[in-house]
C-alpha cells in the first residue's frame, strides 16, 4: 500500500525468514567477523578471475540463506539480485546456477535494499511465497572496473573507501514469527554535482538524507521510532555530512542510533581510509551483524538506508558528476 509519495507499507507483514552473509579475508580481520556465516581467506575462492570469485560469493550467500531457512532451491519463486559489475554479471551468473525465476536489479551499492524492498513487495502482493534477495561486491573486481589495477601504485586520498568483498542474501516469505519487513521507501536520484570517484560518501550523503526525510514525512513518524538507523556505505566523510545535513533540515537525529554499515564493518582500520563501501557492505552488515542483534533482542525496530553511486567508469572519464540514490527498508521484530 502506498503511503505518502514514495513509501510502501507491507500490510501483510512479510517475514525475513532467513539470511546469510559471506565475507573475504579483510572482512574476517574486522570487528564484525563473528557475524559472518562463512569467511574466506582467499579473495580468489579458487577461481581464475575476480569476477568469477564474486559470483561464487553470491552463490554461497544464496545457498546459505536457503539452507538456513530449511528450504531447497526449488522452493524459491523469485530471485532478485544486483551487483557492481558491468551488466550485473555476478547476479545473472549466480541466477544461472540457482535456476529459479530471476529479476536482475541495478542500484549500485543500494541494490541490497532495492532487492529486499522489491522481494517484500512481491511477497506482500502474493506474487511469491519465497523470494530471495541478494547483493554482492568484490574489492579487486570493483577496483579493476571502476579505478586502477589492484597492484597499481596510486596514492588514494583520505576520502576514499574500501569496497567490501562478500555477499549477503535473505529469504522473504509470507508467514512466520518475524522479524517482519514493515515498509520501504524508494529513493529519488539526487546529484549534488560531486564528480570525484574517490569521494563517494560526500556524493551519496544528500541522497541518504533525501530518502530518510521522505520516509519520516510519508509515515509521519518521529525520529525516535527506530532503535537503529543505518546508512549503507557513507563512510566517515559521508556519515558526518549526512548527520549535519539532517540537523540543518530540522531532523535532529540521535548520534547513538544513527550509524553506517561502512563504519561498522572495518572499525578503525586506517587501511580502508573513510570506511567500507560496495553492495556487500550494507548486505553483509545487515544480514549478518544487524540481524543477529535483532534476533538476540538487542534491536527491535531498524531502518536500513542503502546508498548507491550510479556512476560508470565511462561517465566519470567524460567528467559527468555522480548521480546517487538511497533506498530504505524498515525491519521490526
Amino acid at each position: 500500500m502506498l503511503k505518502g509519495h514514495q513509501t510502501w507499507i507491507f500490510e501483510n507483514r512479510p517475514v525475513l525468514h532467513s539470511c546469510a552473509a559471506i565475507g573475504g579475508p579483510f572482512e574476517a580481520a574486522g570487528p564484525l567477523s563473528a557475524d559472518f556465516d562463512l569467511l574466506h581467506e582467499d579473495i580468489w575462492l579458487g577461481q581464475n578471475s575476480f569476477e568469477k570469485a564474486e559470483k561464487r560469493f553470491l552463490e554461497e550467500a544464496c545457498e546459505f540463506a536457503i539452507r538456513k531457512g530449511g528450504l531447497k532451491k526449488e522452493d524459491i519463486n523469485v530471485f532478485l539480485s544486483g551487483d557492481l559489475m558491468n551488466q550485473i554479471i555476478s547476479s545473472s551468473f549466480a541466477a544461472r546456477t540457482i535456476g529459479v525465476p530471476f529479476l536482475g536489479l541495478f542500484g549500485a551499492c543500494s541494490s541490497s535494499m532495492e532487492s529486499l524492498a522489491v522481494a517484500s513487495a512481491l511477497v506482500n502482493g502474493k506474487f511469491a511465497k519465497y523470494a530471495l534477495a541478494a547483493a554482492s561486491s568484490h574489492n579487486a573486481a570493483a577496483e579493476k572496473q571502476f579505478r586502477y589495477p589492484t597492484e597499481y601504485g596510486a596514492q588514494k586520498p583520505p576520502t576514499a573507501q574500501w569496497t567490501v568483498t562478500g555477499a549477503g542474501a535473505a529469504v522473504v516469505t509470507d508467514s512466520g514469527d518475524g522479524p517482519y519487513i514493515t515498509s520501504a521507501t524508494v529513493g529519488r536520484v539526487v546529484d549534488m554535482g560531486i564528480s570525484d570517484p574517490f569521494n563517494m560518501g560526500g556524493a551519496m550523503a544528500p541522497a541518504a538524507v533525501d530518502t530518510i526525510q521522505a520516509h519520516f514525512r510519508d509515515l509521519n513518524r518521529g525520529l525516535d521510532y527506530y532503535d537503529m538507523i543505518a546508512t549503507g556505505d557513507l563512510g566517515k566523510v559521508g556519515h558526518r555530512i549526512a548527520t549535519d545535513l539532517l540537523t540543518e533540515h530540522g531532523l535532529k537525529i540521535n548520534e547513538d542510533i544513527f550509524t553506517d554499515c561502512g563504519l561498522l564493518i572495518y572499525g578503525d582500520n586506517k587501511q580502508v581510509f573513510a570506511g567500507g563501501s560496495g553492495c556487500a557492505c550494507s548486505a553483509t552488515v545487515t544480514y549478518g551483524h544487524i540481524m543477529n542483534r535483532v534476533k538476540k533482542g538487542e534491536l527491535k525496530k531498524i531502518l536500513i538506508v542503502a546508498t548507491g553511486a550510479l556512476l560508470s567508469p565511462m561517465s566519470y572519464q567524460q567528467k559527468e558528476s555522480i548521480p546517487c540514490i538511497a533506498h530504505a527498508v524498515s525491519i521490526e521484530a
Partner: protein
Amino acid sequence: MSSKKKKKLSPAQQQYQAFAKAREPKRPAVTNTIKAFFVGGTICLIGQTLQWFFIEYFNFTETTAGNPTVAVLIIVSVLLTGFGVYDHIAQWAGAGTAIPVTGFANTVASSSIEHRSEGFVLGVGGNMFKLAGSVIAYGVFSAFVVALIKIIIQKLGGM
C-alpha cells in the same frame, strides 16, 4: 575545482559542495610532498649507485651505464608489483614512487597482472599499456616537438 566547472552547477549544488568540503579530511599535501621528495630522491640515489657500480666493475661508460641501471630498477619494481608490495609503498610515498622509472614499470606490470584473466592477447597484450599508453604517446610527441625546436634554432645559427 576550477571556476569554469563550478559555473555549470546550480546554486544549491554549489552550496552543498562548500558544505561537504568543510567536512572532508584534506589531503596532507605538505607531508605528502616531503615524503615524495625523500622517496624519489632515494630511488635516484640507488640509481646513481647502480650506475657507478656498472662503470666501476663492468667497464661501462657514463653513457652506456644508463641501460643496465634502468633495467635493474625496472626489474626490481616489477617484482615488487608482482609480490603485491609496490602499491603499499606507493600509498605512503605518493609521487615519490610514481615519477621515476619505477612508476612506469609499475603501471605496465600492474595492468598486465590485472588483465591476465582475459587471456594473453586480449587481456595482457591489449591492456598492458592501458595506463602507460598516454605517457608513451605524449612523451614521444613532446620529444618530437623539443627536437624540432632544437633543429630550428640550430639552422638559424643558434647554439
